[in-house]
């Protein structure tokens, strides 16, 4: 018997992982949630049939979405994570002793419950005393905040379904308002490769550029996401992601990482020409 999980990366491209067994399947108010065990990638989480994370490669995504901004703004004390109910971004954040408060805003409590039960690897730090969890629409939560956070991490699903509102101009504008004068925001920025993802990526970039004075994009290699080539957005009121980055200060923290390092930090902002071209198209206005 062979059991396979298959996700359509495009209408004509499929990505499959052999499954050992399915551990959980449930329908929440917002989405279908599934957990599988696989021989190659370990345990993995899917929402509405889309791959969210696997135990084997989640470190890449979570290290890149957290350490890049933290290395640019090491004084950050108050951090807001929007989405990210799996707890992976929170886990990386809790490694910084300087952070005093981590607010996680996740729309779907069932995702958090399921991850706590089946994915302790990512959800294990959600009980850290600095973490507060709000089960709310991220767009609504951030609307009420002003000059409140040093860092906002937008760890969203895709720009359709419950995460839709997190790819809009009103959301990025509200994030700008919620950040302090030297605050910054990073976001899951989709992929430049397949046209559908690339369009979402361009739209997100356009809206961020309109909302923040500094807006750059960096990349990582994530095997289980469509095309494997994934982007993050770095939007900031004051700090430049490379010029204001102090590698020595970050190294002095002594954090052990498997993907991220200061050289890679700088390199991640060097993008392929075709990606630059896609981004520049949106920057012209």
């Amino acid at each position, binding site marked *: 018997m062979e059991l396979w999980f298959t996700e359509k990366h495009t209408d004509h491209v499929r990505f499959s992982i052999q499954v050992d067994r399915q551990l959980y399947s449930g329908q929440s108010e917002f989405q279908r949630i599934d957990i599988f065990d696989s021989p190659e990638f370990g345990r993995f989480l899917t929402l509405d049939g889309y791959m969210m994370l696997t135990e084997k490669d989640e470190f890449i995504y979570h290290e890149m979405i957290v350490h890049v901004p933290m290395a640019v703004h090491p004084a950050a004390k108050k951090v807001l994570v929007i989405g990210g109910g799996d707890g992976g971004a929170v886990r990386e954040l809790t490694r910084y002793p300087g952070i005093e408060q981590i607010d996680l805003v996740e729309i779907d409590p069932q995702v958090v419950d399921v991850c706590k039960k089946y994915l302790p690897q990512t959800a294990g730090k959600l009980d850290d005393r600095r973490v507060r969890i709000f089960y709310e629409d991220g*767009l*609504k939560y951030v609307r009420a905040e002003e000059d409140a956070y040093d860092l906002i991490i937008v760890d969203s699903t895709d720009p359709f379904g419950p995460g839709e509102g997190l790819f*809009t*101009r*009103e*959301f990025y*504008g*509200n994030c700008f*308002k919620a950040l302090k004068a030297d605050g910054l925001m990073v976001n899951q920025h989709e992929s430049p490769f397949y046209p559908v993802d690339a369009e979402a990526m361009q739209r997100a970039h356009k809206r961020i550029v309109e909302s923040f004075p500094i807006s750059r994009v960096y990349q990582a290699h994530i095997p289980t996401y469509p095309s494997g080539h994934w982007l993050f957005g770095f939007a900031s009121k004051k700090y430049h992601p490379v010029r204001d980055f102090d590698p020595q200060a970050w190294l002095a923290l002594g954090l052990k990482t498997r993907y991220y390092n200061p050289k890679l930090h700088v390199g991640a902002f060097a993008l392929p020409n075709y990606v630059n071209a896609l981004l520049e198209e949106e920057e012209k206005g």
Partner: protein
Amino acid sequence: MLEALQRYKSMRVVPFDVPGHKRGRGNRELTDFLGEKCLTVDVNSMKPLDNLCHPVSVIKDAEALAAEAFGAEHAFFMVNGTTSAVQSMVLSVCKRGDKIIMPRNVHRSAINALILSGAIPVYVNPGMNRELGISLGMSLDDVARAIAENPDAKAVLVNNPTYYGICSDLKAITDMAHAHGMRVLVDEAHGTHFYFGAHLPLTAMAAGADMAAVSMHKSGGSLTQSSLLLISNGMSEGYVRQIINLTQTTSGSYLLISSLDISRRNLALRGQDIFQKVSNMAEYARAEINRIGGYYAFSKELVNGDTVFDFDVTKLSVHTRDIGLAGIEVYDLLRDEYDIQIEFGDIGNILAYISIGDRRLDLERLVSALSEIKRRYMKDKAGMLSQEYIRPQVEMAPQTAFYSESESVPLDGSIGRICSEFVMCYPPGIPILAPGEKVTPQVLEYIHYAKEKGCFLTGTQDSQVNRLQVIREG
């Protein structure tokens, strides 16, 4: 209707009749765009499917079900929009020279009906909320005065509700008109849901009115352009049908007809639940918008027992002037900057149409976008025109004016002249000037301001609205 169409489809009849696309086969591009299912029921009137102009079988049955659902003696399926339903109401009760009492803030379709019929309007100036700059309902005293001064009037026309969701005291107006032998016609273009929701304003049929034009395609969920005309109190079904057939197409679309029947069924079965959800969504959005500050999303607190006798809580109207922006400017910003399309923006307000198709996350987007617009664009409100209701100076009956010899003059050269055409912002389609009304400096100032703020002005022969048709003098 659904069953009849499905039965017809399953018979696989060979079509040697119109429409010429023959179930879509003759127009591949259109079929690909709209879908085969849609094209296969775009068919012609025929015995198994009845005929809208003279229903004797399935359409007749479907109309009877609609009448029952709406509490009317008879319901007509309308496929030329609620505009045609409103016109049919007026044409059914007014002949040339007959008087009809109506508020001036009616939709253009009502005044169009006056041009067609030659009826003479007796305008009741609606109440006005100066702070919000919106026209309200008719005051009972004003209607009483109009009736006393025009005892020969044939009918009273009432909006239930206005575009903004404001209702007059329909029951009292109806009783008063009936006591004076006048018919009561109700424009319920924005009130379909009143018939099905709990705790919503009184409906025309429940108030005892004689006729009502109901836009099923607005809150009722049917296809655009489909509508209902309801009659009661022994109005002659046969005569009203003749009136409808004067202007309605003889090729009634089965897409529209079936959408009316399917929507009626949905409303009858689930309407109460649907409109409870819609009300809850509107209330939620109102509370969130009011929490932003600067905006005022108004509701039942406006009720004053007279010109605001009741308020339709499913309407999400927001006053924007206090953030220094005209409603139309907020309307444009929402679309251009935030990809959000709302129903309309006028000088001082916007209206977002909330329906069962809305999701909570879309409401969050709307509220957040409004919050952003305030943060980014708020300015001093000095110099902003408050939208006043401008009392029309009616010099001539609309039909006489429309058919009089006229000439085109530049807008600014039109002061003091009698206009022979409409000028209105669309939406909402309530005329600023109607045929037969005098052009005053106040009217011109309003037109200029509306143009400057980006309102879409319509109604004139000149597409740019730089010139106006006025009645030739001397």
